[in-house]
């Protein structure tokens, strides 16, 4: 019995050490964000005994670019996720409640579009967008991200809808509910947790997306990914400021992610792991 206790203490201790190691870069950046630039670059590094300051956060927020980028991130991630749900909910409804012989094929085809690397379509998209005036527009990027996340949204919604008893929807239909009523009044309340977690997952993916956002935006529509990427120039040498800007950019989705981590597993494995 004692041997067993000892081994579980060792495992627990190891688990904590390993988890803290994984989280260390973030914890270190959090610490650095409260240092002065001089302390941030000091060698050997300062751990806790330094003059804690909020100056870096003040400097980053005083820069107008931060709030403009934050707004663009919200618009792009929010807009693309709303659009993906708007298209994904009806599609998932059809697959879950009116399946045909082709449903499985359609689902797998949607998944296979994710295997198309964005670079394969970068150039035409760039040139079309240039001609249509969609370069550097939040709408243009949101449209692409909606399409990119649509397969994940459909899969996730589909796997959620299948837990809803079809009889209830049929009963509503027999009572003369319109399609819209069936979706909004009958299905949505029952599938609310699934809808919410789908929205948050694709919102997070869109928030962090850094291929289209870096390639198709420059000034007006640049979201936080572009704001941070700009620190790769010599500005990146200001470690404390980089850390503060990083914390401000990741905080919203980090918190959302903590709350949605269990649904994340189900969503990104297409319901195969619950």
């Amino acid at each position, binding site marked *: 019995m004692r041997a067993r206790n000892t081994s579980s203490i060792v495992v627990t201790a190891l688990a904590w050490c390993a988890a803290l190691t994984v989280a260390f*870069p973030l914890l270190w950046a959090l610490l650095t964000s409260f240092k002065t630039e001089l302390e941030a670059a000091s060698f050997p590094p300062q751990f806790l005994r330094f003059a804690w300051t909020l100056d870096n956060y003040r400097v980053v927020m005083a820069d107008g670019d931060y709030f403009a980028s934050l707004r663009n991130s919200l618009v792009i991630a929010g807009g693309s996720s709303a659009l993906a749900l708007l298209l994904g909910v009806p599609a998932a409804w059809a697959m879950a409640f009116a399946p045909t012989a082709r449903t499985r094929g359609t689902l797998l085809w949607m998944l296979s579009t994710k295997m198309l690397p964005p*670079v394969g379509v970068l150039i035409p998209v760039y040139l079309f967008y240039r001609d249509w005036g969609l370069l550097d527009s939040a709408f243009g990027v949101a449209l692409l991200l909606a399409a990119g996340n649509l397969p994940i949204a459909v899969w996730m919604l589909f796997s959620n809808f299948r837990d809803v008893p079809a009889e209830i929807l049929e009963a509503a239909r027999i009572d003369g509910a319109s399609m819209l009523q069936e979706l909004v009044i009958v299905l949505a309340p029952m599938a609310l947790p699934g809808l919410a977690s789908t929205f948050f997952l694709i919102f997070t993916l869109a928030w962090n997306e850094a291929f289209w956002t870096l390639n198709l935006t420059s000034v007006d529509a640049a979201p936080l990914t572009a704001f941070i990427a700009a620190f790769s120039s010599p500005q990146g040498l200001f470690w404390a400021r980089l850390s503060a800007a990083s914390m401000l*950019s990741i905080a919203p989705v980090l918190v959302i992610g903590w709350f949605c981590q269990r649904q994340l597993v189900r969503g990104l494995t*297409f319901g195969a792991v619950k």
Partner: protein
Amino acid sequence: MTAAAISTGSGRTYLTLRARLMIAPAVGLLLAISILPLTATLWFSVIDYRLLTPGSSRFVGLANYGRLFTDAAFLPALLNSIILVVLVLAISILGGLALALLIEGAKVGRGALRLLVISPFFVMPPVSALLWKNLLMQPVAGFFAWIAAIFGMAPLDWFARIPLVSISIIVAWQWLPFACLILLTSLQSFDREQREAAQLDGASAFAIFRHLVLPHLARPIAIVVMMETIFLLSLFAEIFVTTGGGPASSNLAFLVYSEAMLRYDVGAASAAGVVAVLFANLLAFFLVRAVGRSLDV
């Protein structure tokens, strides 16, 4: 035939029709945003198209492909793409599995452990790349340089000496949480009675892991491999903000970007894009077949 049967019959047709209408917008958008531009990429790859000399869109056959394959940057980019995927998959899955087993066995604070471990997954690529590059891997005052100094070693100039490995480590750090979380969830659904029965029969911990746990994890591991491969083939931001390309760290995705956006050679860039698509499809063919079989639809 009774009236009821007729009405169900037509009801079903009506339902199917409605279902098609409901799927149509989603399928339409996906077609418009994948197949249409892909066709355009194929077309651009066989014409002479330079952004700086508009109007020159002569059909040149496979000349762009010839120029691409003889380009000194092509083969390294293809190899780098493969190395990146393999390294990141290896680190994230082995590390993620080890971590998942530890957390599963931990007695205190499993919820907090999950939060700590999953966090890097929600960090946007430019942030993780720049934090690692500057705060940790910087050779003069970075954290790793300090660790090296403690052990009396010379600091490693990560991005100058081993750029591709450095990028792989950063990317693996972002994906290890994903692998860990999925494997952990799967571990927690592992049948306790089965494990206890095996223990009573005198099976060693390793035998239980090898013959019971590992087969149970086969499907989640296959899914992790597929999802990570999808995202890893398009790796871009981490290269963009750290090394900014170059033969030592460019992958196919970055090659397309630099041919088109930096050298304005749409033809060669499109040819590279087509190669990237073929390459991804080759992998997809095997992955989707392996995983699609195990998805319960």
